[in-house]
Structures are given as structure tokens and as C-alpha cells.
């Protein structure tokens, strides 16, 4: 199975994932066969689609052969988040390839879980993922040691998070508040962001098991700031 993964919930990234079915006693596996990621979180409209194109020799020819497209549905800053979903929906339409959504914080939880299997000191129990929600808040969710989503995603101030290990760029940004709360902030993940590579591996693991993913609807978590204007004050 060949999967195109896209995430723009923080940085802009894309990856091609190939899954290998279980055979001769070997477990099913998945590997990243190509990936692209930005450093910054504000150039999605320029770089995302060229980045996706770079994963293919000839995208228009190879795209229709994909088995699935998965896209991070956030939470993340709205404008950036939409750029990935807009592109993913269009690719899915043109190539006639099924599109699935994955909660973006799951990607980072997948990375944390992988790192923890190599370094048992990293975390041993439940943990949190936090990313930058701007406006002095974080997007966050709580996971089991096996990276199963237990709670969230939420948006709120870092100072309101449960006292658990916190991974992700949101933790690095608000380290002092989190430490004061009794959280721990492992250095190795203090500036980590969700990536399409991790999102795609996570999605592949679920798809191989026949699990259902999410629709591609964005998880905004916040309303638009618009306020319904009150009645005009009369001069009387």
C-alpha cells in the first residue's frame, strides 16, 4: 500500500509511506520512502505543493496509483491548517484516491512512543502532547503509554495542563509554566512538531488493521473571532 501523507498543523510537511503486509512470520510494517518538511510555520501556501510534487517523479502520472491520502486535521493555526486540507482534498478529487483525516497531535505521540521504545527513561506512563496555539495557549491531548488518545484535543493555557510529561513545541514554549504545574518537559521533544512522516506511519498502522480514520474536516477548536454587533446606541 502506498500512502501520501500531508500535515500543515504547525510546519508544512508531506511524506510517501509504503506498507509491507505481514508474511512468513514477519509482522506488517511501514516505511517512509520520501518526505519533505519546512522549518517554519508560516510559508505553507508557497512551499507545500512544491514539496508534495517533489515526492514524485511525475505526480500527475503516479498520483492515481496511490492507495490513500491522509491529512492532518489539526488542531493548528487555521490558515496553515487549511492549506494542507485544501491541497489534500483537491489531490483526492483529481486522482480519485480515498482521503482520510488524522488528528495531528497523534503524529507527535507516535514519534514519542517510538523514542520511548528505544529510551525507557523518556516516559513510562501517560503523557501529553502540546503544540503552539498562539495567543498564549497550546493545543494539547493526553495519551496512554502506547500512544492511544485518552483525552482531547483541547486548546487552553499551558498552566491548566495535567501534571504529566509534556512533549512538543508547546511544552518548550511554556516550560516554566509547565514545570510550575508539576509537569516534566523532556528536552528531546521540547521543540518537536507533528510531521507528515509520523502522521503517515500512524495512519498506515491503523489502515493495515482495517481501522477507520477521521473525515478530513479541520479541528479548529476555536470559533472565528467574529462578534455579532449589538444594537446601535441611540443618541437619546
Amino acid at each position: 500500500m502506498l500512502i501520501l501523507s500531508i500535515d500543515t498543523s504547525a510546519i508544512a510537511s508531506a511524506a510517501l509511506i509504503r506498507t509491507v503486509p505481514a508474511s512468513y512470520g514477519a509482522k506488517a510494517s511501514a516505511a517512509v520512502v520520501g518526505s519533505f518538511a519546512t522549518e517554519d510555520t508560516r510559508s505553507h501556501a508557497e512551499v507545500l505543493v512544491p514539496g508534495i510534487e517533489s515526492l514524485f517523479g511525475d505526480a500527475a502520472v503516479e498520483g492515481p496509483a496511490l492507495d490513500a491520502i491522509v491529512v492532518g486535521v489539526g488542531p493548528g493555526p487555521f490558515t496553515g491548517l487549511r492549506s494542507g486540507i485544501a491541497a489534500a482534498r483537491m489531490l483526492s478529487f483529481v486522482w480519485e484516491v480515498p482521503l482520510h483525516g488524522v488528528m495531528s497531535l497523534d503524529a507527535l505521540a507516535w514519534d514519542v512512543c517510538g523514542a520511548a521504545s528505544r529510551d525507557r527513561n523518556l516516559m513510562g506512563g501517560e503523557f501529553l502532547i502540546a503544540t503552539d496555539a498562539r495567543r498564549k495557549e497550546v493545543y494539547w491531548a493526553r495519551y496512554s503509554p502506547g500512544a492511544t488518545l485518552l483525552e482531547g484535543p483541547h486548546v487552553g493555557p499551558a498552566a491548566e495542563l495535567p501534571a504529566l510529561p509534556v512533549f512538543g513545541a508547546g511544552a518548550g514554549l511554556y516550560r516554566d509554566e509547565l514545570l510550575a504545574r508539576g509537569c516534566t518537559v523532556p528536552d528531546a521533544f521540547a521543540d518537536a512538531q507533528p510531521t507528515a512522516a509520523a502522521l503517515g506511519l500512524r495512519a498506515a498502522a491503523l489502515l493495515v488493521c482495517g481501522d477507520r480514520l477521521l473525515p478530513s474536516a479541520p479541528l479548529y477548536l476555536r470559533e472565528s473571532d467574529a462578534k455579532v454587533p449589538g444594537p446601535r446606541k441611540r443618541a437619546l
Partner: protein
Amino acid sequence: MNRTEPLILGIESSCDETGVGIVRGTQLLANVVSSSMEEHIRFGGVIPEIASRAHLDAMVPTLRAALDAAGVSLAEIDAIAVTSGPGLAGALMVGVCAAKALAVAAGKPLYAINHLVAHVGAALLDESLGAVSVGEDDGGGPQEVGDGGGLGRLANIGALLVSGGHTEILRVGSIAEDVEMLGSTIDDAAGEAFDKVARLLGLNYPGGPAIDALAKTGNPRAIKFPRGLTVPKYMGTPAEPGPHRYDFSFSGLKTAVARCVELFEAQGQQPPVADIAASFQEAVLDVITAKAVLACRENGITTLLLGGGVAANSRLRELADQRTRAVGIRLLVPRLSLCTDNGAMVAALGAQLVMRGILPSGIAFAPDSSMPVSSISLR
């Protein structure tokens, strides 16, 4: 690629309309628009974040509907065109990302197009205007530029664009290569002023149609509202033009209307809303039409094209007709579905660029919310 009658798909998302249009040369094949206008009513104006959310959900369904309406497949399309500015940044981003993905997925060249110039391109699609705008020799009128095939049909004309998002006078030397901004609003767009005044008068959003209707029952000379940027210090003379000779300003007018309403209320009187609506509308449209005609006369322009949603206003059409007629300027008003924001106008401009052999923009460009008209497409 077919360069004589290219099949172009255009995508528009600069404000609150998600538009996808398909043209073959100057022939309109599909013009599908999904508007989020209803969602903005309770706020009394376009909320950018709400518009952006609606664009995301409307984009693929609108594209599908346009392909169905035109009866063409993506494989047949020669090139994609998308509005890259000016407009609301977050709204533009949705259309641009979708268009880039479409271009890559279908393997088509992509043109990043100026929304204001696309409004001018809309006129090419209205057959009823085509006959009058092509190749008539009336000394300075629109001229066929010589290479036929509809190229240069919009040469040497003026364009007056009036909407909730913009208010401009353009000089169009050639739609694909030479467009100049002669004047524009320095604060609110005219349509925005209509929305704000409608709210002051207790009318519904959008304010344009509401004020147009109410004004018919009022006296446009009842209240003397200010005409922005019309005093000599801004206008100057033809020989020595002032700093805002062809520019507009509506924020002072809006304040004057608010004062007027408050004055009546402070005296315990019901404000005469029909007279206020008529007088306000006259103040806006008097300046707009007078300056547009002035700009045409001083720039050797004998054809004026009207575009933008406010082209629906009956008094604007009337005044523009009277004033252009009086000085021998030909007025072109495309049908309303081509005046309001739409994808077909984007496709129409894209087709002109392809026919001129102008290179596509690639897929690495960024949307530009303040894209100048001198930039007809991004290179």
C-alpha cells in the same frame, strides 16, 4: 497547448464567493459560485475567518459542478488560473493551495492572476458587449490590436470597479500587458460604506440592495452629505493634478450619516431614513461617476466598463449612463453574474494570457493580499 482558443479553468476565493469558471477563449462554458454571504449577515459584514472556512468546504464541490456544467474533463483543460490577490489573505490562501494541488495533480500549467484585472476580463465573456467593443473605428475607442482571434478586444478602455471589497478606476491599455491604477479608495470600499450606513439605518446586510430600494422612496437632495476628496487641494487641475484627483474616500461620509441620524434622535425625532439613504447613495455615486468620467476624459479613454457587485445598483447604472452619454463615452455593463466575484472572469483573463503566450506562474508563488494591478499575473 491550444493558444487560439484555450480551455481554461479559473478559481476565485478572494472574498466571500468561492467561484470556479471554465472558458474556451472568450466563450463562457461554466460559471459556478458558492457564496458564504448568508453566514455573514448576522455580523453585518464579511468575516474573513468564516469566509475562509466556507472556501475550504465549497472548493471541490464547486469545481465538480463547474466541470459538469461545462461538460469537460480535467484532462481537456489547457491551463488553470487562480486569483492570487488582492483580497483577504486567508481566503486567497485556500484558493491558491487548491489551485496549486489541482495543477500538480492534473499536470497543468498554473497562472496566478490579479483579481481586479480579472473583473475587466469578465466583459470578454458577455457576447452582448462583444459586438460593440470590437474593432470599431471611432478614433480612440477600443481597437482590435491587429492579431485577431479576440486578442486585444479590451484595449484602451477604462474600468470602474465598485464592490464591497474595492473601489477603483483602471486604465486598461491591454488586458494582458498594460493595466494602470488611475484612482482608488483611500479608506472604505464603496460597498463597505453601503453596508455600514445600512446598519446605521437599521437595514439588513448586504446594504447595497437595501439602500438602493429605500432610496427610491427618498429625496437625494434632502441632506447635503460631503463628497470625499473633491476639494481643489485634492483635485488640483488637469495640468497640475492634486494628490487624489481620481481617488475616493467614504469614511467621512459614513461619519456624517451617523451624525445626521444622531441629530434627529437627539431632537426626539424619527430620522427620515429614506431621505438619508437617498442622499447618502447620491453622495457616493455622484463622486464615483464624476471621477470615473473625469479620469476617462483626461486619459483619452472613450469606453468605460463597469464591474463589481455594486454594478447592480440601479442609481449607479443610471448616473453612469447619463454622465458617459453626455460626453460621448461608451458604457459597458456586463450582466450581473459576471460583475460580482466569480471564477469565469479569472479563467477569461487566464485565457488572454495564454493567447498572448505569457508564461505560467509556476507553483512556488505566495498569494499577495495587496497585489498591485501593474502585476496582471505573477511571473
